[in-house]
Structures are given as C-alpha cells and as structure tokens.
C-alpha cells in the first residue's frame, strides 16, 4: 500500500511537471497566472511545513512568517553579496536560508517543551513580531525600506523548475518523515504527551525536531519568495501572513498533507481570480476558520455534517 502511494505520487508529480512545463514553454499561460506559479510553490511549502507543527505536533504556531522571513533574509543576503553562477547560487541560498531558519526553529522549540498550547501560541506570535521589528530597524538589511537587488540572474522559466523541485522535496521529506517511526513519535506526542513519555518517546527531541524541520522549509520558502520578487520588506512577514498560512492548513484539514497542498493552491489562485472579492477576503477567512472549527469539534454539528455528507467521510489516517 505504501508503495502504491509512492508510485501514485511520482506519477502525479511528473504529470503536473510536464503539463506546467508545456504550458509555460508554449506561452499558453497568461502573464497573470505565470506570476502565480512561484507564489503557489511558496505557499505550498509554507502550508505543508506549518502542518507539521499544527497538524502533526499539535502545537499552534503563529509565527511561521517569522521563520519564512529569517530564511528569506539569510538566503537573499547571500545572493546579494555572492557572485556565483545562478545554478550554484540559488541552491546554496536555499540551503543557507533553510539552515538559519532551522536554527531559530530550534530556539523556538525550547519554550515549546515547557509551555502549554495557548502560551506557546503567544510566544510564537511574539517571536514573529520580534523578528519583524528587528528587521525593520536593522540598517544592514535595508530597514523598513527593504532589502533590494536580489538577483541571481537565473532565467524565469528555469526558476519555475527550481521552485517546483523544492516543493517536491518538501512534500517528500515531510510525508516520509511523518510515515516513519519518527513521525509516529511526533503524532504520539500530539495525542498524549504523558503516554508518549511512558513508552519511552524522547519528547524533548521530537518536539524540537518538529520545529526545526518546519522552520527549515519555511526558510526555504522565504528564499524562493525573495528571489522571485527581488525585494524583501519586513512588513510582508507580519502576523497576517502567519494567519494566512494557518488558514491554509486549517482549510486543508489539520494533519492532512494533500489537503494543505490543495488549500495553498486555491487560496493563492482564488484571490487573483476573484479580485472583486478582495475587500471581503479577510472576512471570508475569518468566517471559514470559525465554521471549520465548529463543524469539526462540536459533537452536534459533527452529527449534522455527517448526516448531510453521508458516508463519504471516513476516519482520517
């Protein structure tokens, strides 16, 4: 069964790749949608990595944009100062961004050991705000004006391929991690910390590991974002960005990786397609968050939902 899934994933990945590649090469995509390709990739990586924290580790992180921005600044600073051929420079920038963000994931993972849910949520929120204010006042990275001149010289169509590869790597690494004894340990901690400890799970190690892996990929997403836009502004990575990623995870259903991917795609494309709804976007997100939580956690409403959607739903894995 495990094997069938892997083969299916490989086939889907290749088909999507070929389809996108032909569309881009033949110029069948409008400029508007071409411009969305990298943001879609960035959001998929962000959503899948945040899902690792929220859906699998069971901790609410409200500072994912903080990890993203740290990675973005670290990777993009490298690009600004290094002068290497793009095919060496971009992978290096990605790795640097990922590693620096992972270091901060480690630091944030430490309070996660001692604090219960809502306190940790506030700590991660505070972390995001601290990162943003510090970047805002740091002159070496351009302060609130932003870090400019991020250009690796890579051709746009090659950059799409890079972004696509990073997405595939993210999905593979995180889902392989989840479906291993290590991932099971993480899920066990989510379901019952005391029981997990009682069967010898190293809670300290796995909680921190969860944050480190998630932060690593969020950092890479930041680097991808930066090289696509060419400028980094601290204001981009505010609390709202963190919430936007959280909405993707929740809409895609917590602990469900394909769900996160689909939600990330929809929530990136939809605002472009439905520009006239722009003003209502936050309102829709808010209502969606409330309704999804009510319909997934209130016993009466769960019954109601099951009645309407019938037997299509089955217990999650």
């Amino acid at each position: 069964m495990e094997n069938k899934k892997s083969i299916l994933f490989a086939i889907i990945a290749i088909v999507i790749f070929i389809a996108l590649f032909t569309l881009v090469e033949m110029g069948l995509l409008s400029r508007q949608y071409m411009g969305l390709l990298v943001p879609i990739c960035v959001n998929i990586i962000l959503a899948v990595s945040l899902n690792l924290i929220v859906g699998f580790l069971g901790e609410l992180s409200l500072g994912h944009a903080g990890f993203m921005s740290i990675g973005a600044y670290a990777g993009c600073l490298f690009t600004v100062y290094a002068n290497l051929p793009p095919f060496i420079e971009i992978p290096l920038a990605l790795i640097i961004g990922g590693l620096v963000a992972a270091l901060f994931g480690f630091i944030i993972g430490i309070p996660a050991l001692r604090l219960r849910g809502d306190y940790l949520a506030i700590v991660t929120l505070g972390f995001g705000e601290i990162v943003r204010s510090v970047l805002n006042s740091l002159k070496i990275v351009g302060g609130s004006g932003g870090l400019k001149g991020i250009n690796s010289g890579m051709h746009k169509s090659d950059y799409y391929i890079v972004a696509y590869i990073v997405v595939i790597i993210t999905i593979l690494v995180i889902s392989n991690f989840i479906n291993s004894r290590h991932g099971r340990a993480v899920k066990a901690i989510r379901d019952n910390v005391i029981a997990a400890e009682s069967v010898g799970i190293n809670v300290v190690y796995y909680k921190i590991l969860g944050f480190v892996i998630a932060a690593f990929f969020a950092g890479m997403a930041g680097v991808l974002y930066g090289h696509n836009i060419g400028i980094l502004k601290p204001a981009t990575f505010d609390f709202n960005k963190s919430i936007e990623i959280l909405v993707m995870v929740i809409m895609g259903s917590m602990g469900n990786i394909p769900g996160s991917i689909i939600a990330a795609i929809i929530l990136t494309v939809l605002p472009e397609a439905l520009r006239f709804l722009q003003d209502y976007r936050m309102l829709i997100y808010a209502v969606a968050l409330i309704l999804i939580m009510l319909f997934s956690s209130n016993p009466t409403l769960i019954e109601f939902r099951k009645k309407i959607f019938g037997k299509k739903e089955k217990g999650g894995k």
Partner: protein
Amino acid sequence: MALLDVKELGISFGGLRAVDNFNLKIEEGQLYGLIGPNGAGKTTIFNLLTGVYKPTDGSFNFNGKEMAGSSPMAINKSGIARTFQNIRLFDNMSVIENVMVGLHNQSNVSLAESILRLPKFKKGEVEMREKAFNLLKIFDLDKDADSLASNLPYGKQRKLEIARALATNPKLLLLDEPAAGMNPNETAELMNTIALIRDKFKIAILLIEHDMSLVMGICERIVVVEYGRVICDDIPEVVRNNPKVISAYLGE
C-alpha cells in the same frame, strides 16, 4: 537481588502526605498485587515509579540502577512500562500504530534512512508492523489493527494499552486497574491473559486492583496501602485474614 527495590519512598503535595514510607521488593517474574481503598495512593505510587512525579524522599532501585527522580522516558527505557487508570491512548492513530509507537525504541532506523526511504527503513517498517501485529493477536485485537484507537470499545482500549506497554519490552509491567469497567466474564478472561503474558514474556507484573477477591486468584504476593502507607505486604492467604486489611475495606 530483587528486580525492583523501593525504599522509604514518599511524596507530599503541599501539606498532604500522599505516599509515606513506601517499601516494596519485586522479584523477577513475580505477579504482585497492589490494593487499597479509594484514594489510598495506589496510582500515586505508580506515578512515582514511572517518573511522572518526582519523589520528595526515598529511593528505588530497578534492575541494579537507582531510578528515583529519573524522567519517565529513562525509566521506561530501563524496563518499566505502565498502563493508566484513565486510559491514555494515541486517539487519532490506528490501533497498530499505537503499538508501533511502543516499539519505537527497539528500532534503530535513523531519521535520514526514513526520509530517504532506504532499504533499511523498509525492512525495519515491515518488521515493526509484524511485531506489533503479533502483540495485537495476544489480546485478540488483530482484527481491529487498522481502526482508529478512539473507536475501540472500552474493554479493548484497556487491552490495547497493555499491548502498547508490552511493546516497549519491559521487565516490569505496572497495570493500573486493567479490568475497570469490564464485566465479570471479561475480567476473568483478562486476568487469564495477564497471567499468560507473565509466563510468555517472563516479566514481573505489579497490578493495581480495586477488587480484592480478583487479585487473590492470580497474584503471588499482595501489598495493601491505606492513607499512603503500607498496612500489609504478604501472600494472599495472610492478607485475606489480616485484621488491618479487613478494617480498611469494611470500615471500623
């Protein structure tokens, strides 16, 4: 030397002395009962022996190592596993996955091998699943292997907890009211299974039970606590006739 040697273990919560001067020796392979009226401190003793609470005084030696004050993880790794009075399963994971979490420390498949899906990972995963499945069979849970743990009926959840604890390959198994909520038939069946796993896995078992007559049948020795103190520690025949025990159970 005894497998578990508890010396003058005690804990206070604020002014309350929950467990006081608790002594116990369990030999390898022994089936021991821990009984006492409600609120006597039985579960607190379990929590002390598994590192959930840190003792305020006393010590305990397990398998030749001093373990008092160690973390629950370290204690489990040293060979003590437990179940919980208020069932604590991994609710959103499947039945077999629950047991596989118990097998976690017996596998050495590394993070890198898992992420890269190397042959060692695949082999390890198959072996783990097989081991878990065999454990489920003992408790007649193999048909439920893929259902969600929280969907199991109550009695099966208790059994799954024992299977998960056994998966950690313990030398001493602490069972906290394993038969709570079961009917007399199920209880008798469970007691048989418990005696059976003791023989099959050659482990010692310390069993909390509310109902004195139940433990009398299978335990070789019984320790009785009341108000956090041991009032009797002997073979069932002696415990049964001990006046202190009788008054603790029937009142003055």
